[in-house]
């Protein structure tokens, strides 16, 4: 299920539930509706956030929220089940990194070995700034010739 079709499905779900097509659903609300979405909106929101933060390892540049890969579907199911079971975000991320490594997270935690990743933009900024500063200063010292 792609990200686009998820939005469509949501629309379809709303239309159908409005038209009473789901009236036969059992009364105690199931944790997951017919389209695999969590019925609790708060949980579904947490799910969306976690799923966007987890990399689909088959395609590597998509999150499991966006990916069509079968494995991404299985991982989404895993996240939903853990949310329903009352697991914390921390526990869910740890479940994933224990199995797939830190690479599964788009934003790696700040620690010694990831210092370069987090620090690189600032180093680049300072370096670039220093170079521009030098060039500008040199040019301002140059005699202006007509």
């Amino acid at each position: 299920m792609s990200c686009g079709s998820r939005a469509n499905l949501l629309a379809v779900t709303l239309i159908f539930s409005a038209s009473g097509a789901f009236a036969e659903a059992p009364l105690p609300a199931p944790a997951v509706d017919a389209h695999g979405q969590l019925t609790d909106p708060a949980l579904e929101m947490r799910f969306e956030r976690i799923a966007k933060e987890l990399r689909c390892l088959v395609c590597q540049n998509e999150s499991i929220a966006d990916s069509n890969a079968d494995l991404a579907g299985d991982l989404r199911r895993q996240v939903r089940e853990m949310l329903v079971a009352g697991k914390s975000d921390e526990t869910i991320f740890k479940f994933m990194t224990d199995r797939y490594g830190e690479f599964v997270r788009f934003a790696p935690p700040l620690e010694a070995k990831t210092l370069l990743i987090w620090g690189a933009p600032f180093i680049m900024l300072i370096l670039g700034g220093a170079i521009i500063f030098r060039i500008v200063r040199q040019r301002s010292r140059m005699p202006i010739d007509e």
Partner: protein
Amino acid sequence: MWKFLLPFAAFVALVVLFAFGLNPNRDIHALPSPLIGKPAPQFALANVIDPSSVVSNSALKGQVYVLNVWGTWCVECRAEHEVLLEISRQHAVPIIGIDWSIDHKPDERDKAKQWLARLGNPYTQVAFDQDGRTVIDWGVYAAPETFLVDAQGKVIFKFISPMTQEVWEKEFLPRIAAAGKGA
């Protein structure tokens, strides 16, 4: 002085970066498995060949074994099949297969049975993972992936991509020998 040294230092830094980054022997998609050195995830799944029996790796404790994740939908698994057959003839270690039904369809099991009957069966036992949970526990993201587990039940090596004779001899056999001595 700085004028020459700085560009030169930048040049050296780029050369070092490219030497690592563009190394053709490095598979940029291969990820280090966090499972290495950890206890192998436990599983108990139905046997592909005989649905009434269960394949579980807890029965393999005390033994070095190879675990190979594959599926009939996986083209590269077809490519490595001959190599696995060749390896199985050496009887070095048990080869446990996990047949991964990637789309959760139950017919993968019949396809797997046909595949093994037609091409030969390199596996000591083949487990059927229909819901993909065991595959997730092992941190598998593509088939084929091949693991090596030591006699203490620890994962000691993982190889992603089709198995080749060369990889078997260079990566697996020395580790199997070392694990056998340690046990």
